[in-house]
């Protein structure tokens, strides 16, 4: 897939996730739009995963620690053919497998997540397991900035460096906002780069909406042999829909009919400019 095609794909995925959130009247809109480009690049340019042979033991692993942004993951997996897109019409509905946080009941999902601060420790275990079995696959996780204060992440940062897990890639969806407010006001996590470097990780910083920068960072690891990889992806919560961007209301907000139409119009216009 070319960079242009990936840009178009990002627009498509944003429209898709808005469509299903709009229909379900539920979902984490802002955070899903924030990580759409990251997931798009992961699944279409980075991860070695095959929808037809998902259980391949040599596949790359992706575990979404910020599980609440599951809608972005659902539409990405559906687009890759892990399950029929129509299944998402049951998003968050009674009896559906497509619930509000990742579950292994859905083809393509590696792990049940949702409570924050869990994804990275599991990935550390999977990265150790890969080394133990002398496998070459890589392990990726996506962290929210709001979940960084969870102490288990910092325990895992230590362990990943201690065990020299250069097959582990942690991506931070750094939109600087969380449900209550700005990270800055809720709990400062500043100097993330320096903190992670001090914890023994090799760090890269990218624009999390720039396809080329994401490809460059995610496909060129390990950044340093013997060190775990940390990618700070600077993002915007609600990215792609101007009235949602940076507006906390859209952390868990669902668009009205009028708002949904406005969002689609804007995304269609963005699409026509690519």
């Amino acid at each position: 897939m070319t960079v242009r095609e990936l840009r178009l794909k990002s627009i498509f995925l944003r429209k898709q996730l808005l469509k299903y959130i709009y229909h379900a009247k539920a979902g984490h809109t802002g955070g899903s739009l924030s990580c759409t480009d990251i997931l798009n690049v992961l699944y279409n340019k980075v991860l070695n995963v095959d929808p037809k042979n998902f259980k391949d033991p040599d596949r790359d692993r992706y575990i979404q620690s910020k599980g609440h942004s599951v809608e972005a993951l659902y539409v990405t997996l559906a687009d890759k053919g892990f399950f029929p897109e129509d299944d998402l019409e049951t998003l968050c509905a009674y009896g559906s497998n497509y619930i509000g946080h990742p579950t292994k009941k859905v083809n393509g999902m590696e792990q049940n997540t949702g409570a924050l601060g869990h994804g990275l420790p599991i990935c550390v275990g999977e990265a150790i397991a890969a080394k133990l079995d002398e496998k070459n696959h890589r392990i990726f996780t996506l962290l929210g900035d709001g979940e960084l204060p969870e102490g288990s992440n910092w325990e895992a940062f230590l362990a990943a460096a201690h065990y020299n897990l250069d097959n582990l890639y942690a991506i931070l969806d750094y939109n600087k906002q969380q449900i209550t407010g700005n990270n800055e006001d809720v709990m400062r996590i500043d100097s993330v780069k320096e903190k992670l470097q001090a914890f023994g990780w090799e760090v890269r910083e990218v624009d999390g909406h720039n396809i080329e920068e994401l490809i460059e960072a995610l496909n060129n690891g390990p950044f340093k042999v013997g060190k775990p990889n940390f990618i700070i992806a600077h993002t915007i919560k609600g990215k792609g829909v101007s009235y949602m961007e940076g507006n906390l209301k859209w952390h868990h907000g669902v668009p009205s009919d009028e708002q949904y139409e406005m969002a689609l119009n804007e995304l269609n216009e963005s699409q026509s400019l690519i």
Partner: protein
Amino acid sequence: MKKYIDQGKNDTRSGYGAAMTELGRTNPNVVALCADLVASLKIQPFIDENPDRFFQTGIAEANMMGIAAGLTIGGKIPFASTFANFATGRVYDQIRQSIAYSDKNVKICASHAGITLGEDGATHQILEDIGLMKMLPGMTVINPCDYNQTKAATLAIAEYEGPVYLRFGRPKVANFTPENQKFEIGKALMLNEGTDVTIVATGHLVWEALIAAEKLEEQGVSAEVINIHTIKPLDEEAVLKSVKKTGCIVTCEEHNYLGGLGESIARVLANQHPTPQEFIATQDTFGESGTPEQLMEKYGLNNKAIVEAVLKVMKRK
């Protein structure tokens, strides 16, 4: 009454360590984790023989549970071990989400459970762990009674697919069950047949129950003694069959009466065969410092307390 001989006092945690040494040699899928309590958990021989299959996490139990969940891929069987309070209460959400809800084949192996941890006192004496673990859907909860049984249970859970909480203790206690016994998860063991009262016990209290039964025999009371090493899944049939014969029951455990074995049995009896029951358990308190014997006496967890409970419950028939 059937005689049980103490083959020499030993700690249940050493039974765990011995089984880990054996698993290190016999099962290449077994890997071990520990949060800075290697000596207490008796797993140094495993580490010496299998340095590549041991992962020290430092004092970071939440991370240990997450790593254990991740390590299950490729068929590995992680045994994550630390003290019982750090293995349960401290990391409940990790166990709930990353292990139980995700149905990971992780073995949570917890030493120093209960009041008999002794001198270190209340912070380390967890009396709530059985309740915490048995409430998790899909979690198997096992509390073996002595060295031999803990060793057998450790070997058995390696063969079982699914999350397990294995609870054992610190002090040296009577070792009276057979060496090289076969351990069947979920199967209660009849230790002594009797007709007047059923005594079911788990963990360190099984030996106390046997002593109590001997004392009762001298008073002309015929006590049936059952070892419930697996609290979940509970061998309901064994309990029901016994109380239908004896008409009353005393449940014995080194745990709070809230959430423990006694409550699990009370539920079964209430549903299927209402029976007078007395609870040998701690009475919703934290512990304190002391020798195991002093604390068992104070908190009513010894054979003397069991005898009193039996005499009381028999009057309620």
